[in-house]
Protein backbone atom coordinates (compact mmCIF):
# COMPACT_ATOMS: atom_id res chain seq x y z
CA UNK A 1 0.00 0.00 0.00
CA UNK A 2 1.17 3.52 -0.74
CA UNK A 3 1.71 5.54 2.38
CA UNK A 4 0.27 8.97 2.21
CA UNK A 5 1.67 11.54 4.62
CA UNK A 6 -0.58 13.83 6.60
CA UNK A 7 -0.63 17.45 5.40
CA UNK A 8 -1.19 18.73 8.91
CA UNK A 9 1.26 17.14 11.24
CA UNK A 10 -1.18 17.01 14.10
CA UNK A 11 0.47 14.13 15.95
CA UNK A 12 3.42 16.44 16.71
CA UNK A 13 1.14 18.98 18.38
CA UNK A 14 1.60 19.65 22.07
CA UNK A 15 -2.01 20.85 22.23
CA UNK A 16 -3.46 17.34 21.99
CA UNK A 17 -1.00 15.61 24.25
CA UNK A 18 -3.05 15.85 27.45
CA UNK A 19 -6.21 14.63 25.73
CA UNK A 20 -5.67 10.84 26.11
CA UNK A 21 -4.98 11.22 29.84
CA UNK A 22 -8.06 13.36 30.30
CA UNK A 23 -10.19 10.89 28.35
CA UNK A 24 -8.76 8.05 30.45
CA UNK A 25 -9.92 9.76 33.62
CA UNK A 26 -13.30 10.67 32.12
CA UNK A 27 -14.04 7.17 30.86
CA UNK A 28 -12.89 5.67 34.14
CA UNK A 29 -15.21 7.91 36.18
CA UNK A 30 -18.12 7.50 33.77
CA UNK A 31 -17.82 3.70 33.85
CA UNK A 32 -17.72 3.60 37.64
CA UNK A 33 -20.71 5.92 37.95
CA UNK A 34 -22.64 3.86 35.41
CA UNK A 35 -21.71 0.58 37.05
CA UNK A 36 -22.84 1.94 40.41
CA UNK A 37 -26.15 3.08 38.94
CA UNK A 38 -26.71 -0.27 37.22
CA UNK A 39 -25.89 -2.23 40.38
CA UNK A 40 -28.18 -0.03 42.40
CA UNK A 41 -31.15 -0.31 40.10
CA UNK A 42 -30.61 -4.03 39.90
CA UNK A 43 -30.60 -4.57 43.64
CA UNK A 44 -33.64 -2.32 44.04
CA UNK A 45 -35.42 -4.43 41.44
CA UNK A 46 -34.25 -7.57 43.19
CA UNK A 47 -35.77 -6.43 46.48
CA UNK A 48 -38.98 -5.55 44.70
CA UNK A 49 -39.29 -8.93 43.00
CA UNK A 50 -38.38 -10.77 46.17
CA UNK A 51 -40.99 -8.98 48.21
CA UNK A 52 -43.78 -8.63 45.70
CA UNK A 53 -46.94 -10.31 46.90
CA UNK A 54 -45.40 -11.03 50.29
CA UNK A 55 -46.58 -9.77 53.66
CA UNK A 56 -45.59 -10.60 57.20
CA UNK A 57 -47.84 -10.57 60.21
CA UNK A 58 -46.18 -10.03 63.53
CA UNK A 59 -47.67 -11.11 66.82
CA UNK A 60 -45.99 -9.51 69.79
CA UNK A 61 -45.06 -11.58 72.77
CA UNK A 62 -47.16 -10.07 75.57
CA UNK A 63 -46.70 -11.06 79.21
CA UNK A 64 -49.53 -13.20 80.55
CA UNK A 65 -50.73 -14.50 77.23
CA UNK A 66 -48.99 -17.32 75.46
CA UNK A 67 -47.88 -16.77 71.89
CA UNK A 68 -48.53 -20.06 70.13
CA UNK A 69 -52.36 -20.19 70.30
CA UNK A 70 -52.67 -16.60 69.20
CA UNK A 71 -50.32 -17.22 66.31
CA UNK A 72 -52.30 -20.31 65.30
CA UNK A 73 -55.56 -18.39 65.43
CA UNK A 74 -54.18 -15.57 63.36
CA UNK A 75 -52.84 -17.97 60.72
CA UNK A 76 -56.19 -19.71 60.53
CA UNK A 77 -58.01 -16.40 60.10
CA UNK A 78 -55.63 -15.28 57.42
CA UNK A 79 -56.01 -18.51 55.47
CA UNK A 80 -59.75 -17.87 55.31
CA UNK A 81 -59.32 -14.35 53.99
CA UNK A 82 -59.98 -14.10 50.25
CA UNK A 83 -56.91 -12.94 48.32
CA UNK A 84 -54.45 -14.69 50.60
CA UNK A 85 -52.98 -17.75 48.93
CA UNK A 86 -50.89 -19.01 51.78
CA UNK A 87 -50.23 -18.11 55.40
CA UNK A 88 -47.63 -20.02 57.34
CA UNK A 89 -46.31 -19.66 60.85
CA UNK A 90 -42.54 -19.34 60.92
CA UNK A 91 -40.77 -21.65 63.38
CA UNK A 92 -39.12 -19.91 66.29
CA UNK A 93 -35.63 -20.95 65.07
CA UNK A 94 -36.26 -19.22 61.75
CA UNK A 95 -37.26 -16.00 63.52
CA UNK A 96 -34.12 -16.19 65.66
CA UNK A 97 -32.04 -16.77 62.54
CA UNK A 98 -33.50 -13.60 60.98
CA UNK A 99 -32.40 -11.57 63.96
CA UNK A 100 -28.99 -13.14 64.18
CA UNK A 101 -27.11 -10.55 62.12
CA UNK A 102 -28.25 -7.87 64.55
CA UNK A 103 -28.19 -9.72 67.85
CA UNK A 104 -25.41 -12.22 67.38
CA UNK A 105 -25.62 -15.95 67.84
CA UNK A 106 -24.56 -16.30 71.46
CA UNK A 107 -27.79 -17.50 72.98
CA UNK A 108 -29.18 -14.03 73.54
CA UNK A 109 -32.12 -14.80 71.27
CA UNK A 110 -33.14 -17.70 73.46
CA UNK A 111 -33.90 -15.41 76.38
CA UNK A 112 -35.42 -12.54 74.43
CA UNK A 113 -39.18 -12.33 73.97
CA UNK A 114 -39.33 -12.93 70.24
CA UNK A 115 -42.48 -12.16 68.30
CA UNK A 116 -44.19 -14.83 66.25
CA UNK A 117 -44.13 -14.27 62.50
CA UNK A 118 -46.58 -15.43 59.86
CA UNK A 119 -45.39 -15.44 56.30
CA UNK A 120 -48.15 -14.55 53.84
CA UNK A 121 -48.31 -14.92 50.10
CA UNK A 122 -51.02 -12.96 48.29
CA UNK A 123 -52.96 -14.39 45.37
CA UNK A 124 -51.59 -12.59 42.30
CA UNK A 125 -54.05 -10.16 40.75
CA UNK A 126 -56.37 -9.98 43.77
CA UNK A 127 -56.56 -6.81 45.82
CA UNK A 128 -56.65 -7.13 49.58
CA UNK A 129 -57.85 -4.23 51.75
CA UNK A 130 -54.95 -4.20 54.19
CA UNK A 131 -56.51 -1.60 56.53
CA UNK A 132 -59.67 -3.66 56.95
CA UNK A 133 -57.65 -6.82 57.38
CA UNK A 134 -55.48 -5.13 60.01
CA UNK A 135 -58.52 -3.99 61.97
CA UNK A 136 -60.17 -7.41 61.77
CA UNK A 137 -56.97 -9.17 62.74
CA UNK A 138 -56.24 -6.91 65.71
CA UNK A 139 -59.80 -7.55 67.02
CA UNK A 140 -59.46 -11.28 66.75
CA UNK A 141 -55.88 -11.65 67.93
CA UNK A 142 -54.49 -9.08 70.35
CA UNK A 143 -51.01 -7.88 69.43
CA UNK A 144 -51.21 -8.90 65.75
CA UNK A 145 -49.88 -6.39 63.27
CA UNK A 146 -49.42 -6.54 59.50
CA UNK A 147 -45.95 -5.56 58.27
CA UNK A 148 -46.52 -4.13 54.86
CA UNK A 149 -43.20 -3.77 52.99
CA UNK A 150 -44.74 -1.65 50.25
CA UNK A 151 -44.13 1.84 51.70
CA UNK A 152 -40.56 0.80 52.36
CA UNK A 153 -40.18 -0.51 48.80
CA UNK A 154 -41.60 2.74 47.45
CA UNK A 155 -39.05 4.73 49.39
CA UNK A 156 -36.29 2.41 48.22
CA UNK A 157 -37.24 2.77 44.58
CA UNK A 158 -37.50 6.56 44.95
CA UNK A 159 -33.97 6.65 46.35
CA UNK A 160 -32.78 4.34 43.59
CA UNK A 161 -34.29 6.60 40.90
CA UNK A 162 -32.66 9.61 42.56
CA UNK A 163 -29.24 7.97 42.65
CA UNK A 164 -29.59 6.77 39.06
CA UNK A 165 -30.41 10.34 38.04
CA UNK A 166 -27.35 11.51 39.91
CA UNK A 167 -25.16 8.97 38.11
CA UNK A 168 -26.65 10.04 34.78
CA UNK A 169 -25.92 13.68 35.64
CA UNK A 170 -22.33 12.75 36.49
CA UNK A 171 -21.92 10.96 33.17
CA UNK A 172 -23.45 13.93 31.33
CA UNK A 173 -21.12 16.35 33.13
CA UNK A 174 -18.17 14.15 32.22
CA UNK A 175 -19.35 14.16 28.60
CA UNK A 176 -19.55 17.95 28.61
CA UNK A 177 -16.06 18.21 30.09
CA UNK A 178 -14.76 15.90 27.36
CA UNK A 179 -16.41 18.04 24.69
CA UNK A 180 -14.87 21.19 26.18
CA UNK A 181 -11.41 19.64 26.24
CA UNK A 182 -11.65 18.50 22.63
CA UNK A 183 -12.86 21.95 21.58
CA UNK A 184 -9.88 23.61 23.28
CA UNK A 185 -7.35 21.15 21.88
CA UNK A 186 -8.82 21.48 18.39
CA UNK A 187 -8.84 25.27 18.52
CA UNK A 188 -5.22 25.24 19.63
CA UNK A 189 -4.39 22.93 16.73
CA UNK A 190 -6.22 25.18 14.27
CA UNK A 191 -4.27 28.21 15.51
CA UNK A 192 -0.97 26.34 15.36
CA UNK A 193 -1.56 25.23 11.77
CA UNK A 194 -3.28 28.35 10.51
CA UNK A 195 -0.66 28.92 7.85
CA UNK A 196 -0.76 25.43 6.37
CA UNK A 197 -4.56 25.44 6.51
CA UNK A 198 -4.62 28.66 4.52
CA UNK A 199 -2.36 27.14 1.87
CA UNK A 200 -4.56 24.05 1.70
CA UNK A 201 -7.62 26.24 1.24
CA UNK A 202 -5.94 28.27 -1.48
CA UNK A 203 -5.03 25.19 -3.47
CA UNK A 204 -8.63 24.03 -3.37
CA UNK A 205 -9.13 22.01 -0.18
CA UNK A 206 -12.67 21.88 1.14
CA UNK A 207 -13.37 22.46 4.84
CA UNK A 208 -14.29 18.79 5.17
CA UNK A 209 -10.86 17.76 3.88
CA UNK A 210 -9.21 19.71 6.68
CA UNK A 211 -11.79 18.65 9.26
CA UNK A 212 -11.15 14.98 8.41
CA UNK A 213 -7.54 15.26 9.53
CA UNK A 214 -8.54 16.85 12.83
CA UNK A 215 -11.30 14.35 13.53
CA UNK A 216 -9.07 11.38 12.73
CA UNK A 217 -6.47 12.78 15.09
CA UNK A 218 -9.05 13.34 17.85
CA UNK A 219 -10.37 9.81 17.34
CA UNK A 220 -6.88 8.32 17.69
CA UNK A 221 -6.16 10.27 20.86
CA UNK A 222 -9.57 9.59 22.41
CA UNK A 223 -9.49 5.87 21.60
CA UNK A 224 -6.08 5.56 23.23
CA UNK A 225 -7.40 7.29 26.35
CA UNK A 226 -10.70 5.43 26.37
CA UNK A 227 -8.94 2.07 26.17
CA UNK A 228 -6.77 2.90 29.17
CA UNK A 229 -9.81 4.22 31.05
CA UNK A 230 -11.72 1.01 30.32
CA UNK A 231 -8.86 -1.13 31.57
CA UNK A 232 -8.62 0.89 34.78
CA UNK A 233 -12.38 0.76 35.34
CA UNK A 234 -12.42 -3.01 34.75
CA UNK A 235 -9.68 -3.43 37.36
CA UNK A 236 -11.53 -1.22 39.84
CA UNK A 237 -14.87 -2.98 39.29
CA UNK A 238 -13.21 -6.37 39.71
CA UNK A 239 -11.62 -5.24 42.96
CA UNK A 240 -14.91 -3.80 44.25
CA UNK A 241 -16.69 -7.02 43.28
CA UNK A 242 -14.16 -9.09 45.22
CA UNK A 243 -14.46 -6.86 48.25
CA UNK A 244 -18.28 -6.93 48.15
CA UNK A 245 -18.30 -10.72 47.91
CA UNK A 246 -16.35 -10.90 51.16
CA UNK A 247 -18.86 -8.71 52.99
CA UNK A 248 -21.75 -10.41 54.71
CA UNK A 249 -24.16 -11.44 52.01
CA UNK A 250 -27.09 -10.54 54.23
CA UNK A 251 -26.50 -6.83 53.69
CA UNK A 252 -26.19 -6.74 49.91
CA UNK A 253 -27.90 -9.05 47.50
CA UNK A 254 -25.35 -10.30 44.95
CA UNK A 255 -25.29 -8.24 41.72
CA UNK A 256 -24.87 -10.02 38.41
CA UNK A 257 -24.79 -7.75 35.34
CA UNK A 258 -26.87 -8.93 32.41
CA UNK A 259 -25.88 -8.49 28.74
CA UNK A 260 -27.63 -5.11 28.54
CA UNK A 261 -25.65 -3.77 31.49
CA UNK A 262 -22.39 -5.01 30.01
CA UNK A 263 -23.30 -3.47 26.65
CA UNK A 264 -23.99 -0.14 28.37
CA UNK A 265 -20.60 -0.23 30.07
CA UNK A 266 -18.72 -1.21 26.91
CA UNK A 267 -20.55 1.48 24.94
CA UNK A 268 -19.17 4.24 27.20
CA UNK A 269 -15.57 4.34 25.86
CA UNK A 270 -16.87 4.03 22.30
CA UNK A 271 -19.36 6.84 22.82
CA UNK A 272 -16.60 8.97 24.36
CA UNK A 273 -14.36 8.41 21.31
CA UNK A 274 -17.21 9.14 18.94
CA UNK A 275 -18.04 12.29 20.91
CA UNK A 276 -14.44 13.47 20.59
CA UNK A 277 -14.48 12.81 16.83
CA UNK A 278 -17.73 14.63 16.18
CA UNK A 279 -16.72 17.52 18.43
CA UNK A 280 -13.41 17.96 16.60
CA UNK A 281 -15.19 17.92 13.24
CA UNK A 282 -17.82 20.48 14.23
CA UNK A 283 -15.21 22.71 15.89
CA UNK A 284 -13.09 22.77 12.74
CA UNK A 285 -16.03 23.32 10.40
CA UNK A 286 -17.33 26.15 12.59
CA UNK A 287 -13.93 27.82 12.89
CA UNK A 288 -13.17 27.56 9.17
CA UNK A 289 -16.51 29.05 8.24
CA UNK A 290 -15.62 32.05 10.37
CA UNK A 291 -12.04 32.22 9.09
CA UNK A 292 -12.58 32.98 5.41
Amino acid at each position, binding site marked *: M*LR*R*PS*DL*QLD*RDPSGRFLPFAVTLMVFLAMLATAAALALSQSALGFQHGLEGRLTVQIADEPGSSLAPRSGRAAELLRQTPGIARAEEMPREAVAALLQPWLGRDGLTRELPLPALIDIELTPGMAVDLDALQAHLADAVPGARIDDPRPWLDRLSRIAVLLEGLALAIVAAIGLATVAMVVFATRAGLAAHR*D*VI*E*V*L*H*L*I*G*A*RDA*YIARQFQAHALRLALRGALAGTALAALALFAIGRAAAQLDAALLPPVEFGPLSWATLVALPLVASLLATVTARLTVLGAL*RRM*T
Partner: protein
Amino acid sequence: MVRFQNVGMRYGLGPEVLRDVSFELEPGSFHFLTGPSGAGKSSLLKLLFLAHRPSRGLIGLFGHDLATIRRDKLPELRRRIGVVFQEFRLIEHLSALDNVALPLRIAGVPEQQVKDHCAELLTWVGLADRMQARPATLSGGEKQRVAIARAVINRPSLLLADEPTGNVDPEMGQRLLHLFVELNKIGTTIVIATHDAHLLQTFRKPVMTLANGELVVRRPRGE
Protein backbone atom coordinates in the same frame (compact mmCIF):
# COMPACT_ATOMS: atom_id res chain seq x y z
CA MET B 1 -11.90 34.77 -17.86
CA VAL B 2 -11.04 37.52 -15.37
CA ARG B 3 -12.77 40.86 -15.14
CA PHE B 4 -12.11 43.66 -12.63
CA GLN B 5 -14.39 46.68 -12.50
CA ASN B 6 -13.47 49.63 -10.27
CA VAL B 7 -12.01 47.33 -7.67
CA GLY B 8 -10.73 48.76 -4.41
CA MET B 9 -8.99 46.84 -1.67
CA ARG B 10 -7.81 47.57 1.84
CA TYR B 11 -6.36 45.58 4.70
CA GLY B 12 -8.68 45.83 7.68
CA LEU B 13 -9.39 49.49 8.36
CA GLY B 14 -6.18 50.65 6.67
CA PRO B 15 -5.95 52.86 3.58
CA GLU B 16 -6.90 51.53 0.17
CA VAL B 17 -3.89 49.77 -1.35
CA LEU B 18 -5.75 49.31 -4.66
CA ARG B 19 -8.03 51.98 -6.12
CA ASP B 20 -10.38 51.80 -9.07
CA VAL B 21 -8.58 48.90 -10.69
CA SER B 22 -10.26 47.80 -13.94
CA PHE B 23 -8.95 45.29 -16.46
CA GLU B 24 -9.87 42.13 -18.28
CA LEU B 25 -7.86 38.97 -19.02
CA GLU B 26 -8.71 36.97 -22.12
CA PRO B 27 -8.40 33.18 -21.94
CA GLY B 28 -4.92 32.14 -23.04
CA SER B 29 -3.39 35.57 -22.46
CA PHE B 30 -0.02 36.26 -20.83
CA HIS B 31 0.50 39.39 -18.69
CA PHE B 32 3.25 40.76 -16.58
CA LEU B 33 2.22 42.73 -13.50
CA THR B 34 4.84 45.25 -12.48
CA GLY B 35 5.38 48.32 -10.36
CA PRO B 36 7.64 49.40 -7.52
CA SER B 37 7.79 47.48 -4.28
CA GLY B 38 4.70 48.19 -2.19
CA ALA B 39 2.67 49.20 -5.23
CA GLY B 40 0.12 46.45 -4.59
CA LYS B 41 1.18 43.63 -6.96
CA SER B 42 0.84 40.93 -4.32
CA SER B 43 -2.42 42.43 -3.13
CA LEU B 44 -3.89 42.29 -6.63
CA LEU B 45 -2.83 38.64 -6.96
CA LYS B 46 -4.44 37.86 -3.58
CA LEU B 47 -7.72 39.09 -5.01
CA LEU B 48 -7.18 36.86 -8.02
CA PHE B 49 -6.43 33.68 -6.10
CA LEU B 50 -9.33 34.33 -3.71
CA ALA B 51 -7.27 34.89 -0.58
CA HIS B 52 -8.83 38.29 -0.05
CA ARG B 53 -12.08 40.05 -0.81
CA PRO B 54 -12.28 43.47 -2.48
CA SER B 55 -13.61 46.35 -0.41
CA ARG B 56 -15.51 47.64 -3.41
CA GLY B 57 -15.96 47.03 -7.11
CA LEU B 58 -16.78 43.88 -9.05
CA ILE B 59 -14.62 40.84 -9.74
CA GLY B 60 -15.74 38.24 -12.25
CA LEU B 61 -13.84 34.94 -12.40
CA PHE B 62 -14.63 32.06 -14.78
CA GLY B 63 -18.02 33.65 -15.28
CA HIS B 64 -18.85 33.88 -11.56
CA ASP B 65 -19.41 37.09 -9.66
CA LEU B 66 -17.19 36.78 -6.58
CA ALA B 67 -19.44 39.02 -4.50
CA THR B 68 -22.35 36.61 -4.68
CA ILE B 69 -20.67 33.21 -5.03
CA ARG B 70 -21.35 30.71 -2.26
CA ARG B 71 -18.47 29.81 0.02
CA ASP B 72 -18.71 26.11 -0.76
CA LYS B 73 -18.18 26.84 -4.48
CA LEU B 74 -14.79 28.47 -3.85
CA PRO B 75 -12.73 25.22 -3.78
CA GLU B 76 -13.87 24.38 -7.30
CA LEU B 77 -12.70 27.79 -8.55
CA ARG B 78 -9.44 27.56 -6.64
CA ARG B 79 -8.65 24.21 -8.21
CA ARG B 80 -8.66 25.90 -11.58
CA ILE B 81 -6.09 28.43 -10.39
CA GLY B 82 -2.40 27.62 -9.89
CA VAL B 83 -0.46 29.91 -7.58
CA VAL B 84 3.26 30.41 -7.06
CA PHE B 85 3.31 32.34 -3.79
CA GLN B 86 5.89 35.03 -3.20
CA GLU B 87 7.34 33.16 -0.20
CA PHE B 88 6.59 29.75 -1.84
CA ARG B 89 4.56 28.60 1.17
CA LEU B 90 5.75 25.02 0.82
CA ILE B 91 4.72 22.74 3.68
CA GLU B 92 7.85 22.21 5.72
CA HIS B 93 7.26 18.67 6.97
CA LEU B 94 6.38 17.32 3.53
CA SER B 95 8.92 16.21 0.94
CA ALA B 96 9.21 18.02 -2.38
CA LEU B 97 7.18 15.23 -3.98
CA ASP B 98 4.42 15.39 -1.37
CA ASN B 99 4.25 19.17 -1.67
CA VAL B 100 3.75 18.89 -5.41
CA ALA B 101 1.20 16.10 -4.84
CA LEU B 102 -1.06 18.19 -2.59
CA PRO B 103 -3.37 19.67 -5.24
CA LEU B 104 -3.94 16.21 -6.74
CA ARG B 105 -4.59 14.55 -3.39
CA ILE B 106 -6.96 17.32 -2.39
CA ALA B 107 -8.81 16.74 -5.65
CA GLY B 108 -8.98 13.01 -4.86
CA VAL B 109 -6.77 11.69 -7.67
CA PRO B 110 -5.81 7.98 -7.17
CA GLU B 111 -2.52 7.59 -5.30
CA GLN B 112 -0.53 5.65 -7.93
CA GLN B 113 -1.36 8.27 -10.49
CA VAL B 114 -0.35 11.02 -8.07
CA LYS B 115 3.12 9.52 -7.52
CA ASP B 116 3.80 8.94 -11.20
CA HIS B 117 2.58 12.32 -12.26
CA CYS B 118 4.51 14.26 -9.62
CA ALA B 119 7.74 12.35 -10.19
CA GLU B 120 7.48 13.08 -13.89
CA LEU B 121 6.95 16.80 -13.38
CA LEU B 122 9.73 17.12 -10.80
CA THR B 123 12.08 15.38 -13.19
CA TRP B 124 11.06 17.81 -15.88
CA VAL B 125 11.96 20.84 -13.68
CA GLY B 126 15.33 19.21 -12.91
CA LEU B 127 14.61 17.93 -9.38
CA ALA B 128 14.68 14.18 -10.08
CA ASP B 129 17.21 13.57 -7.30
CA ARG B 130 15.62 15.98 -4.78
CA MET B 131 12.11 14.50 -4.67
CA GLN B 132 12.35 13.19 -1.10
CA ALA B 133 14.06 16.34 0.24
CA ARG B 134 12.29 18.58 2.73
CA PRO B 135 11.94 22.27 1.75
CA ALA B 136 14.36 23.28 4.52
CA THR B 137 17.18 21.44 2.74
CA LEU B 138 16.43 22.91 -0.70
CA SER B 139 18.13 25.96 -2.16
CA GLY B 140 16.07 29.05 -3.05
CA GLY B 141 15.96 28.06 -6.71
CA GLU B 142 14.99 24.49 -5.91
CA LYS B 143 12.15 25.63 -3.63
CA GLN B 144 10.97 27.92 -6.36
CA ARG B 145 10.81 25.06 -8.83
CA VAL B 146 8.90 22.90 -6.34
CA ALA B 147 6.47 25.78 -5.83
CA ILE B 148 6.03 26.15 -9.57
CA ALA B 149 5.54 22.40 -10.00
CA ARG B 150 2.85 22.45 -7.30
CA ALA B 151 1.14 25.36 -9.06
CA VAL B 152 0.99 23.65 -12.45
CA ILE B 153 0.52 19.96 -11.48
CA ASN B 154 -3.25 20.18 -11.74
CA ARG B 155 -3.23 21.82 -15.19
CA PRO B 156 -4.80 25.07 -13.99
CA SER B 157 -6.52 27.29 -16.51
CA LEU B 158 -5.21 30.40 -14.70
CA LEU B 159 -1.64 30.55 -13.40
CA LEU B 160 -0.57 33.33 -11.04
CA ALA B 161 3.04 33.78 -10.00
CA ASP B 162 4.29 36.36 -7.50
CA GLU B 163 7.93 37.26 -8.21
CA PRO B 164 8.71 33.71 -9.34
CA THR B 165 12.24 34.66 -10.36
CA GLY B 166 13.02 36.71 -7.26
CA ASN B 167 15.25 34.16 -5.60
CA VAL B 168 17.16 32.72 -8.53
CA ASP B 169 20.03 33.88 -10.70
CA PRO B 170 19.08 35.55 -14.00
CA GLU B 171 19.83 32.46 -16.03
CA MET B 172 17.49 30.25 -13.93
CA GLY B 173 14.94 33.09 -14.05
CA GLN B 174 14.90 32.93 -17.82
CA ARG B 175 14.56 29.16 -17.80
CA LEU B 176 11.58 29.31 -15.43
CA LEU B 177 9.97 31.99 -17.58
CA HIS B 178 10.28 29.70 -20.58
CA LEU B 179 8.32 27.11 -18.61
CA PHE B 180 5.48 29.62 -18.21
CA VAL B 181 5.65 30.46 -21.91
CA GLU B 182 5.29 26.76 -22.71
CA LEU B 183 2.26 26.46 -20.43
CA ASN B 184 0.79 29.54 -22.06
CA LYS B 185 1.18 27.90 -25.44
CA ILE B 186 -1.05 25.03 -24.37
CA GLY B 187 -3.74 27.48 -23.30
CA THR B 188 -3.04 28.49 -19.70
CA THR B 189 -3.82 32.10 -18.87
CA ILE B 190 -0.83 33.60 -17.07
CA VAL B 191 -0.16 36.59 -14.82
CA ILE B 192 3.35 37.08 -13.48
CA ALA B 193 4.12 39.76 -10.94
CA THR B 194 7.72 40.95 -11.21
CA HIS B 195 9.76 44.08 -10.88
CA ASP B 196 12.56 42.63 -13.03
CA ALA B 197 12.80 45.07 -15.95
CA HIS B 198 15.11 42.68 -17.78
CA LEU B 199 12.41 39.99 -17.93
CA LEU B 200 9.91 42.48 -19.34
CA GLN B 201 12.44 43.34 -22.02
CA THR B 202 13.19 39.71 -22.93
CA PHE B 203 9.63 38.41 -23.01
CA ARG B 204 7.66 40.98 -24.89
CA LYS B 205 4.22 40.52 -23.36
CA PRO B 206 1.47 42.93 -22.26
CA VAL B 207 2.40 44.70 -19.03
CA MET B 208 0.04 45.88 -16.30
CA THR B 209 1.74 48.54 -14.20
CA LEU B 210 0.66 49.45 -10.69
CA ALA B 211 1.60 52.79 -9.19
CA ASN B 212 0.02 54.27 -6.06
CA GLY B 213 -2.64 51.61 -6.13
CA GLU B 214 -3.79 52.42 -9.65
CA LEU B 215 -3.35 50.23 -12.71
CA VAL B 216 -2.31 51.01 -16.28
CA VAL B 217 -2.22 48.31 -19.01
CA ARG B 218 0.33 48.65 -21.85
CA ARG B 219 0.81 46.44 -24.87
CA PRO B 220 4.31 45.98 -26.23
CA ARG B 221 5.02 47.68 -29.55
CA GLY B 222 4.51 45.44 -32.54
CA GLU B 223 1.72 43.36 -30.98
